[in-house]
C-alpha cells in the first residue's frame, strides 16, 4: 500500500499538450504510471501521446474515470485549473506549478473546503509510490519500493533524501512533496495522518525548512503519541534571519520559523532530528538495523 496514489490510480494531466506537460507525461508513462488522458482547453478531441485530450476536466473525468490530476499549467491559470478539477470531483489534485500568487492559493483553499478534493502543492515535485505510480517530476530511478514514508517542503532536497535512503538499502512507501510555497494544500499534519493509517509505512522522514509553522504543527501530532518513528531534517540552520520571512508573518506564526527552533520543538516532541543533510540515509538505516537486525 501507499498513501494518496497507488497502482490503480487513474491520472489526468492538466496542461497535457504543453511542453512541460508533454515532457513529464512521457516520463510518468515510462515509469508505468496509468495516465488516462489529458486536458488542454481548445484541443479537445485530439490524441496526444496515444491518449485522449479533453476540453474540460468534467468531460475528461466522465470519459476516463480519472481520480487524480496533475497540473502543468502556467501560474496565472493554475487556480482556475485546480478549482475546475475540484468541481469535477477529482479526488487528488497535484499542483507542480511554481509561482502561483499566494492569494490564489488562499482562494483555492477556501474553494476546496467545500469539496471532497485534496490538493497537493503547489510548487511540489509531486508524489511517487515507487514501482507503482509517479505523479510528478521527480527522477524515477532514484526511488526504491520500501517502508519509509517521505514528506518534504523541498524538491531536490527530497531527491537527496530519497537517494540516500535507497543508497542505504531501504526504500520508500510513498515520497510526497507538500510544496515550497507559503500556503500549501496538504500539510505535514495531513500526511502524518495518512502515513499513520498506511500499514506499509514503518517510519517517516520529514524534510522541513525555515519559515512558517508546518513543522511545528507536525510536532504537535508527534507529541500526542505518534505510532511510528519520525526522522526530521530542517534545512536553513545557516540561513540569515529576516531574509525570506515577511514581517507580519512572524507575528502570526508566534515568532517561530527559525530552523533551530523547529528542530528543537521536533526533538522535544519525540522526533529523531537529523542535524546534517548528508546523514539522512545513515541515520534511518542505523535505526532500522538496530530495531530490525534481520
Amino acid at each position: 500500500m501507499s498513501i494518496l496514489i497507488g497502482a490503480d490510480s487513474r491520472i489526468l494531466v492538466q496542461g497535457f499538450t504543453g511542453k512541460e506537460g508533454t515532457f513529464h507525461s512521457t516520463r510518468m508513462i515510462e515509469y508505468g504510471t496509468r495516465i488516462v488522458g489529458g486536458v488542454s482547453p481548445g484541443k479537445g478531441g485530439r490524441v496526444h501521446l496515444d491518449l485522449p485530450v479533453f476540453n474540460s476536466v468534467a468531460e475528461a473525468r466522465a470519459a476516463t474515470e480519472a481520480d487524480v490530476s496533475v497540473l502543468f499549467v502556467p501560474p496565472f491559470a493554475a487556480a482556475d485549473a485546480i478549482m475546475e478539477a475540484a468541481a469535477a470531483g477529482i479526488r487528488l489534485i497535484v499542483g507542480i506549478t511554481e509561482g502561483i500568487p499566494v492569494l490564489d492559493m488562499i482562494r483555492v483553499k477556501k474553494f476546496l473546503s467545500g469539496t471532497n478534493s485534496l490538493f497537493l502543492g503547489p510548487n511540489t515535485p509531486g508524489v511517487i509510490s515507487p514501482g507503482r505510480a509517479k505523479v510528478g517530476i521527480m527522477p524515477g530511478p532514484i526511488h526504491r519500493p520500501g517502508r519509509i514514508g517521505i514528506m518534504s517542503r523541498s524538491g531536490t532536497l527530497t531527491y537527496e533524501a530519497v537517494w540516500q535512503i535507497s543508497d542505504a538499502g531501504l526504500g520508500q512507501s510513498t515520497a510526497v512533496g507538500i510544496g515550497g510555497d507559503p500556503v500549501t494544500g496538504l500539510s505535514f499534519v495531513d500526511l502524518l495522518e495518512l502515513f499513520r493509517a498506511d500499514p506499509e509505512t514503518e517510519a517517516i522522514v520529514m524534510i522541513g525548512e525555515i519559515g512558517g509553522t508546518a513543522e511545528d504543527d507536525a510536532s504537535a501530532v508527534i507529541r500526542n503519541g505518534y505510532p511510528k518513528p519520525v526522522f526530521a531534517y530542517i534545512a536553513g540552520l545557516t540561513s540569515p534571519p529576516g531574509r525570506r520571512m515577511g514581517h507580519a508573518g512572524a507575528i502570526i506564526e508566534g515568532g517561530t520559523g527559525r530552523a533551530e527552533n523547529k528542530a528543537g520543538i521536533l526533538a522535544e516532541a519525540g522526533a529523531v532530528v537529523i542535524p546534517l543533510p548528508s546523514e539522512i540515509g545513515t541515520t534511518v538505516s542505523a535505526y532500522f538495523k538496530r530495531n530490525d537486525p534481520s
Partner: protein
Amino acid sequence: MKFLEHRAKEILFRYGIPIPKGEVVETAARAAAAAESLGNRVVLKAQIPAGGRGRAGGIKFALGPEDARAKAEALFKTRLITPQTGKQGLPIRSILVEEAVSFRSEFYIGAAVDRSQGRIVLLASPRGGIEIEETARTKPDAVFREEIDPFVGLLPYQARRLAFALGLTGESQTQAAAIITGVARAFLQNDASVIEINPLALTDEGRLLALDAKVVLDDNALFRHPDFRPPADDPDADPAEAAAARVGLNYVRLGGDIGCLVNGAGLAMATADQIQAAGGRPADFLDIGGGVSEDAVREGFKIVVSDPGVRAVLINVFGGIVRCDLVARGLIGATKETGARVPFVVRFQGTNAAEGRALLAASGLAYEPAETMGEAAKKAVAAARGGSRS
C-alpha cells in the same frame, strides 16, 4: 516587493486612508522648501528599504525651513545602519518631509497571510508605535484578529468589531472602521503579503492619521499589477543579487568564502548547512532553480565567482528536471569565458549525472568531483583553506 514608506502611503491613500501632508525630496534645498510650505514643524523621514530607522537616527524633527535644510543635509550624508540593513548600512537617497502631528494615542492596524491556516488575517491593537510581535508576546489580549475571506472580503461588521476593540467611539470609531476596510481592500486588490499602519495616530484634533505605513506585495502576483513592477535599476540593490535576478536566478549574499551553486532552495540551504558543519562559511545562496538554461548556469557561476571573497566554489546539483549534463556545459562555458581559476568541487546526482561527470572530465578543467554532499562540503572547505585566487 516592498515599497518605501511614501509609496506605501500613496497606495493606502487611494483606499481612503488618511495620511499626513508631505513631500518626498532628494535635496536639502527641496527639504527646506517643503518645510516652508508645510508649516513650521515638520518631520524628516529617511526613505530606505529597511525597518528600524527611528532608533538609527533616520527620523528628525525640524522647526522651520532652515532647520529642515540643515537636518536634511546631515541625513543625506549618512549611511543608515539598522538591524535590517547589514553592517555597511544604506545610503539615504530621499527624505519624506511631513507635517508634524500632535497625537493622543497610537494604534496598530495590519493585514498579513497566516501561512499555517492558509488565510488572511487582519490585526488591530490599541498598542501602536511598537512592534506588533512584541505586543503579541507581552500582551496577547491587546491584539484583535479578523479573517479576511478572499472571496467575501472583510465584512462591515468585522471592521466595526475591530474598531470597537480599539476602544474608539463615535466619529473615530466610524473612521477606524473605514480605515480597516480600506486596508482589507488594498490587501486583496493589490495581492499584498503585508500591509501595516503603525502607528495609526489619533491626533489632538480627533482625526485618525497613518503616520507610518508598510506595504509588501507578493512578487508572484506582479503579473497582475504591471504598474507596480520595480524599476530595473534599483540603485540600492546588491549588484550580484540584481544580476542574478535579471537571469531569473535567486542569489543571496551570505558573506563567507565558499561560493555555492545549487539547484533548488531546500538543497541550497542544506548545502550551506553542510559547509558550515564542515567548518567552512558559505559565501552565498544561489538557487539555479528547476527550469534553468545553460546560459543561466553560466551567468550564475560568473556571479558566484564575482564575489571577491570567494576562495572555492561548491556545485551541488541533484538532477531532476535540471539535467546534470546541461549544468556541466554551463560550467565549462563559464570557466572558459571568465578564465576564473577559483577551485571548484562538483557533486552531481540524479538525471544525467554520469553524462555531466563525463563532460567535465573530458573538458580538461581542474575540479574536484564528489559523490555525496558531505564529501563535497569537506573538499570545498579544504580547497578554500588551501587555495588562493589567481
